[in-house]
């Protein structure tokens, strides 16, 4: 049994609305071990994105505990959280979230700036990661010059540049066509094979098939948690 990267105990999150607190997550318990590839599924409004934001230290839980690498993130200050976001976690968004005025290389290198890495080393690693996602020829381009799938690959390169142990992806293929989606998923699979823990949110069963474990949310609770069952019906249809 490998060590646990993520442990969530009785996690609750509610938003304040005019009609009082609105619960989004209700007593969620989950443990994810290092090296796992987990797909978090569920319909819109089931709380999976909120759960992901809390895992990514972008948002805080209302109650319950979240241990990342055994440390309770509720006890950490803003700088320590920033360090977690920068070094331990690589976050991939549905909307790519590249900075529009920066070249792809600078975008990929940006987390290294905040990590205090020297400029030459930043360049070297950004190029290396761009090569890994197959976009080294676009290093000097701006994000709006490349396609959505390419942008997402750059975003993945950015998430990887600080060598995180954990990749969190919130609907990474939500804005992409099925062919491009498969390319992106192949990339995640390859990363997982390298030993990086991958947690991704999706509502598409096809995408979830790439993961080794599936967690299903409904109304703020986990209703299903188990290994992926490969069924012929969900396999991609031949073109």
């Amino acid at each position, binding site marked *: 049994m490998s060590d646990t990267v993520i442990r969530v105990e009785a996690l609750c999150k509610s938003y304040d609305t005019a009609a009082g607190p609105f619960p989004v997550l209700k007593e969620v318990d989950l443990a994810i071990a290092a090296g796992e590839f987990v797909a978090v599924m569920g319909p819109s409004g089931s709380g999976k994105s909120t759960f992901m934001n809390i895992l990514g*230290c972008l948002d805080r839980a209302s109650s319950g505990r979240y241990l990342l690498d055994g440390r309770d993130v509720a006890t950490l200050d*803003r700088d320590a959280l*920033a360090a977690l976001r*920068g070094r331990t976690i690589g976050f991939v*968004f549905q909307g790519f979230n590249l900075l529009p005025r920066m070249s792809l290389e600078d975008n990929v290198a940006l*987390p290294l*700036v905040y990590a205090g890495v020297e*400029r030459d080393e930043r360049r070297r690693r950004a190029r290396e990661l761009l090569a890994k996602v197959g976009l080294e020829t676009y290093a000097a381009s701006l994000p709006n010059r490349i396609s959505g799938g390419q942008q997402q690959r750059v975003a993945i390169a950015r998430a990887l540049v600080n060598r995180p142990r954990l990749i969190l992806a919130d609907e990474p293929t939500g804005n992409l066509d099925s062919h491009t989606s498969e390319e992106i998923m192949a990339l995640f699979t390859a990363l997982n094979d390298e030993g990086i823990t991958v947690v991704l949110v999706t509502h598409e069963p096809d995408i979830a098939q790439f993961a080794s474990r599936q967690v299903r949310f409904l109304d703020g609770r986990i209703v299903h948690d188990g290994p992926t069952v490969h069924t012929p019906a969900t396999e991609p249809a031949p073109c």
Partner: protein
Amino acid sequence: MLSAMLGEAWRAMGANRLRTFLTMLGMIIGVGAVVLMLAVGQGAQYAVSQSINTMGSNLFIVLAGPPSSGGVRSASGGGATLTRADGDAIAELPGIDVVAPVHSGSAQVVYGPNNWNTSVFGTTPDYLEARSWTVAEGDAFTDSDVRAATRVALIGKTAASNLFGSESPVGKTLRIKQTPFVVLGVLASKGQSLDGRDQDDTIIVPITSAQRKLFGTPFPGAVRMLMIKASSAEAMPSTEKAMVALLRQRHRLREGADNDFMLRNLTAIADSAAETTRIMSLLLGAIASVSLLVGGIGIMNIMLVSVTERTREIGIRLAIGARERDVLLQFLLEAIIISLAGCFIGLFVGIGGALLVNALTDTAVIISGSAGLIAFAVAAGIGIFFGLYPAKKAAALDPIEALRYQ
């Protein structure tokens, strides 16, 4: 790290060039105005202090005749109520350095084919001391010249150049109202007086010669004016009272009768002139500072807009590991760069404006390095001060709120 941040600040500023320039323009105008106003104000102060320095320090003048008007009275200096004996008596008072009697008038002066109307001062060598006036070329006349009423003269630079051209006047004989006078020396240049007269357009002769040969006098020993130098500025108020009392006693003025002389504290007048210019330049500086303040507020305004516009960008940065101080530094740097660049350009605009004012109006301007340094420090301060609030606002954003911002 810092170089990367500077590069980003540059990129952010370049992304909206017109807006960056307009923001900068506020600083340019503010700093330009401050530099220009300081230059003009300091120039005016310098001009006044130059005039004051040439006047001499701790000076009183006593004029013959009543100070007030009304009834049939002749102009000040016209009466025969003030004598050299009064001057000698005043010189005995404590706190008095020198007393110089003056009998002056305007006269036509001729040398060869040149003809020039100038003011002629009959006085004693003490006058030069009172006004701290030196002789640039040749020698001054002495007390024995005064006793003997010799026909010798000292000539100011302007009068000399008008009468003698490029010749040296020393040893030459000129005619004042037909009377020949030998020029003993040329006075050092003093430039303009506080009231704008050319102090170098003058001829100084022994008072006895002036009274006997040039202007005449109703009574021997009567003078139009006494110039008095007190030994110190502190002694001036008490000295003034003592002089008034002494002159009233000597002139046998009854209790309640008007003075038949007029005493003026020249230094006080000069001080008030200096004070006026000082206040004027302060006022100019204050008005200019307001425009600097407005420029700073412009920066704050734009930075606040920029923070709002880039909320999502800030969210992305926070999500990939930026700490609060990274975001703070980024926005602060932008504000400081805008304000420093504006200051730098404003400095040149201000200096250019000052030179233009100088060229167009002949007004003295002083461009001091310290003013430039102060402007720079103030600009950096404004950048930090007005950039800090927007930068703090940006840094305090919650990552998830910022990411959700559309």
